[in-house]
């Protein structure tokens, strides 16, 4: 269009040429409206002849899709038969149409420019970020490789002496720690779960052994709770494959009950006279 205007001089649009253009457009519209009216009348007529049911009993989706297929075929036929429409042979209309089109396009391109700029920025920051990632990951890789090499070297060198010394040091520390917590436990148990005194024992015996003439029971010394715990712990560590200990008459039954009920000890399901420590360490 720019070329056209330089060749023919600037397009000066007079008001009467505008009026003329308007008339052309009006005429065009009238024609189209006539066509619309005709088509609509046709549609109404067709409808009066159409007696197919609206919906069948089942889900209407099949009906709908069939109707859609029909319509699509018709639309394709219309599209195929249609020639591209031309603008009317009026220069004013043509000029205005092209102008409008170009203005729309300029607006769109300005939006696009803004988008491109923001995309550019985003890409820049992404590159920066990725480069940063890369540096970090490479550092991690180098460090891990070094550590691996170091480990392999030590293994080959067979630096056993250092290793053993280190283990011994750890063992000592552990033993010390173990002693300490055992002491804590002993204090706690002694304070809160003392050995049953004679009257308690007598009372219990009276309740549970009605005959009360089993002299063997009377004279046996009752194990303190801490001893039971100690036995349980030792058995658990010394023979993990069979951690059960036998309950004999030195075990005061209420304490055994207590241990089982609180989940500290477990009864042997096959032998009620055996208990073991719950494997807290597994």
């Amino acid at each position: 269009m720019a070329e056209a205007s330089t060749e023919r001089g600037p397009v000066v649009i007079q008001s009467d040429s505008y009026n003329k253009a308007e008339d052309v457009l009006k005429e065009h519209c009238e024609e189209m409206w006539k066509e619309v009216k005709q088509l609509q009348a046709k549609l109404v007529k067709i409808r009066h002849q159409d007696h197919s049911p609206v919906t069948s009993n089942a889900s209407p989706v099949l009906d709908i899709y069939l109707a859609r297929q029909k319509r699509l075929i018709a639309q394709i036929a219309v599209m195929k038969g249609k020639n591209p429409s031309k603008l009317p042979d009026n220069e004013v209309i043509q000029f205005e149409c092209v102008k409008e089109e170009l203005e729309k396009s300029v607006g769109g391109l300005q939006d696009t420019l803004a988008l491109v700029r923001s995309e550019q920025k985003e890409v820049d920051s992404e590159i920066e970020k990725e480069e940063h990632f890369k540096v970090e990951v490479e550092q991690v890789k180098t460090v891990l490789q070094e550590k691996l090499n170091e480990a392999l070297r030590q293994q080959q060198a067979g630096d056993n002496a250092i290793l053993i010394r280190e283990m011994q040091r750890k063992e000592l520390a552990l033993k010390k720690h173990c002693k300490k917590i055992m002491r804590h436990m002993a204090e706690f148990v002694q304070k809160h779960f003392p050995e049953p005194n004679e009257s308690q024992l007598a009372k219990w015996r009276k309740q549970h052994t009605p005959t009360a003439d089993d002299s063997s029971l009377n004279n046996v010394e009752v194990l303190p709770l801490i001893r039971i715990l100690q036995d349980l712990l030792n058995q658990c560590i010394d023979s993990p494959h069979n951690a059960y200990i036998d309950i004999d008459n030195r075990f005061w039954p209420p304490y055994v009950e207590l241990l089982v009920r609180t989940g500290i000890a477990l009864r042997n399901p096959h032998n009620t006279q055996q208990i073991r420590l719950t494997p807290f360490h597994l």
Partner: protein
Amino acid sequence: MSRDLNQFETLRKDELLPFNKLPIFMQEVMLIVGIQGIGKHALAKAIVESSTSKTLQCRTATHLPLPEEHSAERPRIDMVVFMIDSRSSASYIQVEQSLQYINRQYFLGKICFIATKVPTETQNLEVESITQLCDDHGSCLFWMDPTSGADRTVVAKKLLEMLNISAGLKPGITPLLTDCTHRLLNMQSF
């Protein structure tokens, strides 16, 4: 749901038709159908507010068929929106019944459903039955939070885009053409 022929004929009389009237110049008309209190008017307001064209009409109805008395003055309806309240099975049944009064031509892209998004404990309708209803009518479904104005505007904007196409205001495109992007309808393209 079998009906005898008499009933059938009366039904066809009340049917809503897409092309029985001439369009009004550059005018789009939407009809929103849903039970009382579901927020039809709020949605209609949101649609009119989101619209850039001044020639948009939103009409509402609790159910179909529309009363016969003013049918002459009623403009051609370009699109029907059904609203379903997920809390009430009555609203579902009403929509289901109203669908009987819609001409098949509307199902070629001039129908859409809106279901309300509600907290699970008040949800009375199963999500599956709602989506099934929409699928059975080959129409799309939007979920809308009835308590959120922002959500309403979002749905309103989508409806406007659909209305533009179904009212024929976008040259070269029809609702069916947009449907052709669906995977199931696109087996032998290219």
